[in-house]
C-alpha cells in the first residue's frame, strides 16, 4: 500500500537522473510533429476529438482527480490531459496526497469523494466498491477501449463481482533482476535463461569472488517494511506453482499455507536465506530486513554484489551519472522461470475509479483508457519512469531504455501477466501480516511457521 508512495518519492530522483541516464533521445513519435515543449502541446489538428463529442457539450465543466502521485511526478500527468481539455473545454483539477490510501476511503464515506481517483491496488478498489457502494461503473466507451488495448487480465483486476469499474492506467514490471552488464562481460557471465542457470550462476559467483556476494536484497521500507519480500514470494509462486495456482492463492481458494506456497517460499529462501549468497555489501541474512529497498541494489555499482531482484521503478534509485542501459553501468534482465518456455510477469499499476457519472467524468475516463492518452503521457514524461500496459502505446514514444524494456515485456505475446498478489489480498494480510511475516521469515522464522501465521490472520 505505502509502497506506491515510496516508489513515487524515489522517482523524484529520476528527474535529476534523466539528463545522464537517457542519452537525449528525441522522441520521434509518428504524427506528433515536433514536441517543442515537454508539455506535449500536440497540435490540435493531430489529435482526434471525435470520441469525446459523443458525450455532448462539456464546455465549462470540471473534473477533480485525486491521486497518490505528488510533485514532481504530477506534472507529466497534468500535461498529458491538455489535448482532452482543449478538445472538450473540460477543466481537470489535480490533487495529489501522500496520505492518499489512508484518506480516500474516509473521504468517500464522508461524502467528499473526488470525481476520479487513481487507485493503486485492486484490493483497495474492491474495498471501495463493497464498503461504500459509491464507485460508478465504467462507461461502455471506456470498457471498449480496455477490451481493445489491454490484456484481459487487466480488465479483471479493474472489475468487482463481474462488473467492470476501473480501467488500468500506468504499470510497472516487478520480475526483473538488476545487474551490471560491464561486470558480467568482464567476468564472462551470461544472463541466465532458466532458474537452474540462475542458480548455477549464483554458485559460480559465490565461488569466484570471495569478497562479494552474488545477491543483494533489502526489505526495509519504513512502515511498509517487508513488501519486497512479498514480491519475491509472488514471483516464485508464479514460477513453481503456475499462474492458476497463483490466482487461487491470492483469492484464498487455497490456504495461504498450502504446500505449494511453502515450495515457492523455499525456492526464494534458497537464495535469500543462504549466507553464502547474501547480503552483498550489507552484512548477514538478517541485514536484509533493515536494509532499505532503495539502498538494496547499490553495491552492484561498487562490486559488493552482482544481482538485485527489484521492479522496473528501481531505475530511479541509481545515483546521478549512472548509465541505465543494456550496454551501461546497470541494466535489468527478466527473472527467469523454471523452464524457458514460460514467461510469467509480476507487476503492478493504477486503476481509474470514478465516483460520479456526469458526462464529463465519463469522457475523461474514456480518454485515460485510450491509446492516444498512453502515447500522450509517454511524450509528456520527458525524463522517463512511466509505462503502461496499453498495447496501443508505441514503444518509440518512451524515452528511457528501462521503460521500453518494461513496455516490451508487458506487450510480449508469451508473457502471462499477474498483478502483485499482496495488493489484491485483504489489506490486513496484503499490507499487514504478509509484510510482517516476510520480515520475520528473513530474520529467522521457519517457512511453515511464517505461512501459518499469515493464514490465521486472514479475515473470516
Amino acid at each position, binding site marked *: 500500500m505505502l509502497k506506491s508512495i515510496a516508489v513515487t518519492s524515489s522517482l523524484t530522483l529520476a528527474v535529476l537522473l534523466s539528463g545522464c541516464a537517457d542519452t537525449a533521445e528525441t522522441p520521434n513519435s509518428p504524427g506528433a510533429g515536433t514536441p517543442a515543449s515537454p508539455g506535449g502541446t500536440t497540435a490540435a489538428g493531430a489529435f482526434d476529438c471525435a470520441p469525446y463529442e459523443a458525450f455532448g457539450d462539456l464546455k465549462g465543466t470540471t473534473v477533480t482527480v485525486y491521486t497518490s502521485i505528488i510533485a514532481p511526478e504530477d506534472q507529466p500527468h497534468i500535461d498529458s490531459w491538455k489535448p482532452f481539455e482543449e478538445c472538450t473545454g473540460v477543466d481537470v483539477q489535480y490533487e495529489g496526497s501522500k496520505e492518499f490510501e489512508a484518506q480516500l476511503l474516509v473521504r468517500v464515506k464522508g461524502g467528499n469523494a473526488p470525481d476520479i481517483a487513481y487507485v493503486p491496488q485492486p484490493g483497495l478498489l474492491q474495498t471501495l466498491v463493497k464498503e461504500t457502494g459509491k464507485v460508478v461503473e465504467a462507461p461502455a466507451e471506456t470498457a471498449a477501449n480496455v477490451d481493445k488495448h489491454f490484456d484481459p487480465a487487466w480488465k479483471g483486476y479493474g472489475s468487482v463481482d463481474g462488473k467492470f469499474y476501473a480501467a488500468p492506467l500506468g504499470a510497472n514490471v516487478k520480475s526483473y533482476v538488476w545487474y551490471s552488464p560491464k561486470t558480467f562481460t568482464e567476468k564472462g557471465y551470461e544472463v541466465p535463461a532458466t532458474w537452474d542457470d540462475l542458480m548455477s550462476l549464483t554458485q559460480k559467483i559465490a565461488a569466484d569472488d570471495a569478497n562479494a556476494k552474488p545477491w543483494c536484497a533489502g526489505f526495509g521500507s519504513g512502515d511498509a517494511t517487508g513488501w519486497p519480500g512479498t514480491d519475491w514470494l509472488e514471483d516464485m509462486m508464479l514460477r513453481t506453482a503456475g499462474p492458476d495456482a497463483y490466482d487461487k492463492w491470492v483469492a484464498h481458494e487455497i490456504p495461504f499455507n498450502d504446500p505449494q506456497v511453502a515450495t515457492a517460499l523455499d525456492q526464494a529462501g534458497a537464495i535469500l536465506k543462504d549466507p553464502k549468497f547474501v547480503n552483498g555489501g550489507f552484512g548477514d541474512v538478517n541485514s536484509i530486513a533493515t536494509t532499505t529497498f532503495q539502498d538494496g541494489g547499490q553495491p552492484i555499482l561498487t562490486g559488493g554484489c552482482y544481482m538485485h531482484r527489484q521492479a522496473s521503478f528501481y531505475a530511479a534509485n541509481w545515483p546521478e551519472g549512472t548509465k541505465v542501459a543494456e550496454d551501461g553501468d546497470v541494466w535489468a534482465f527478466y527473472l527467469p522461470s523454471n523452464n524457458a518456455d514460460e514467461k510469467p510477469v509480476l507487476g503492478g499499476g493504477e486503476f481509474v475509479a470514478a465516483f460520479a457519472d456526469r458526462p464529463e467524468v465519463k469522457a475523461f475516463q474514456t480518454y485515460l483508457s485510450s491509446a492516444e492518452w498512453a502515447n500522450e503521457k509517454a511524450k509528456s514524461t520527458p525524463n522517463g519512469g512511466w509505462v503502461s500496459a496499453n498495447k496501443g502505446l508505441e514503444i518509440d514514444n518512451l524515452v528511457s531504455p528501462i521503460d521500453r524494456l518494461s513496455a516490451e515485456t508487458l506487450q510480449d505475446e508469451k508473457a502471462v501477466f499477474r498483478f502483485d498478489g499482496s495488493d489484491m489480498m485483504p489489506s490486513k494480510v496484503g499490507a499487514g501480516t504478509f509484510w*510482517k511475516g516476510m520480515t520475520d521469515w528473513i530474520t529467522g522464522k521457519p517457512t511453515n511457521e511464517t505461512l501459518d501465521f499469515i493464514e490465521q*490472520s486472514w479475515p473470516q
Partner: protein
Amino acid sequence: MKIADKFIEMIMAIIIFAAVVALIVGVAWLVGRLKSKTSDRLQGLVYILPVLVMLLAGLVWPAVLTIRQAFGGPTGDKGFTLHNFATVFKSPELLGPLLNTIVWVLAVPVLATVIGLAYAILVDRSRFEAFAKALIFLPMAISMVGASIIWKFVYDVRGPGQTQVGLFNAILTFFGADPVDFMQARGWNTFWLIIVMVWIQAGFAMTVLSAAIKAIPDDLIEAAKIDGTTGWRLFRFITLPSIRGSLVVVLTTVGIATLKVFDVVRTMTGGQFDTSVLALEFYNYSFRYFEYGTGAALAVILFILVLPIVIYNVVQMRKDA
C-alpha cells in the same frame, strides 16, 4: 493569483471569526442588561454555550461513535458484540503491542523525570547553567519524526569488517566488538526506541523541575541547613516535597504523551521486530486494514489506559489550586 486567493480566504476567515465573537459578546451583553435575578447565570450560559456545542460536536459525539464502533464487529457497523476486544486480547500480534505500550508508559516518564531532575539539580546555579539547559532542551524543538531519523542513523548497522555508518556501532567496532543490530535485537529493541523518547522528553522535565526548584524559598533551605540538613537528606526532605506538584505534572504529561507514542515506532521500525505499540496498531487497523471496529476497540483501550493518569493529574491540580 493563488497567493492572493489564500490571503482573501484568510482575511475572510478572520472577519467571520470576529463576527461570531462579536455576536456572542453582544448577546451576552443584552442578557446582562435584563438585570433580573437570573441574568448573571444566563450571561454565563451564553458564554459557555458555543464551547459546549463545539465540544459535543467535535469531541463527545465522535467519542461516542468510536465506542459504538468498537462494539460493532471488525468493520464497526454490525450489531453489538465483544468480538473486537476478544480479538485484541486473543491475537499475539495485538497482545504484543499492548505489552510494549505498558513498558513504554512505565519506562519513559520515570526515566525522563529522573534524568531531567538530576540534570536540573546538577546544573542549578552553576556557571554554565543556561548553556547546559539549552543543550538538553534542544531535542524538544525537533519533531518526533526528525528525532527518530537522527537516532536511526545512530543505531545503523553494517556487516562486520565494513565501515560502520551508525555512531554506536562505530564505537563498538572501534573497541573491537562485533556490530550489533539494535533494531533487530528482539526484547531489547523496544528499550532502544524508548531512549529516543526519553531524549526528547527529558528536556521538558528538566525545564519544569528546574523552575520548581528555583521557586523553593531560600529561607526554607537556609533553615534546613542551619539545622544540619545537607546533601541527600536536604533533597529528600526539603527539595522533593517542595516540588511534588511539578513532579506529578511532569510524570503525568510525559505519561500521556508516551501512551500516544506512534511517530517514533513508525519511523524507526514500522512496528516490525516485535516493537509495535497500541497507537500504531490503531492507525494500521483503522487506515490501512480498514477494520474500523478493531481500530476503534484499540482506541477505547488506549482511552481507558490514559483515563487514570488524567484523573490523577486533575485531582492533583485541584489540590494545588
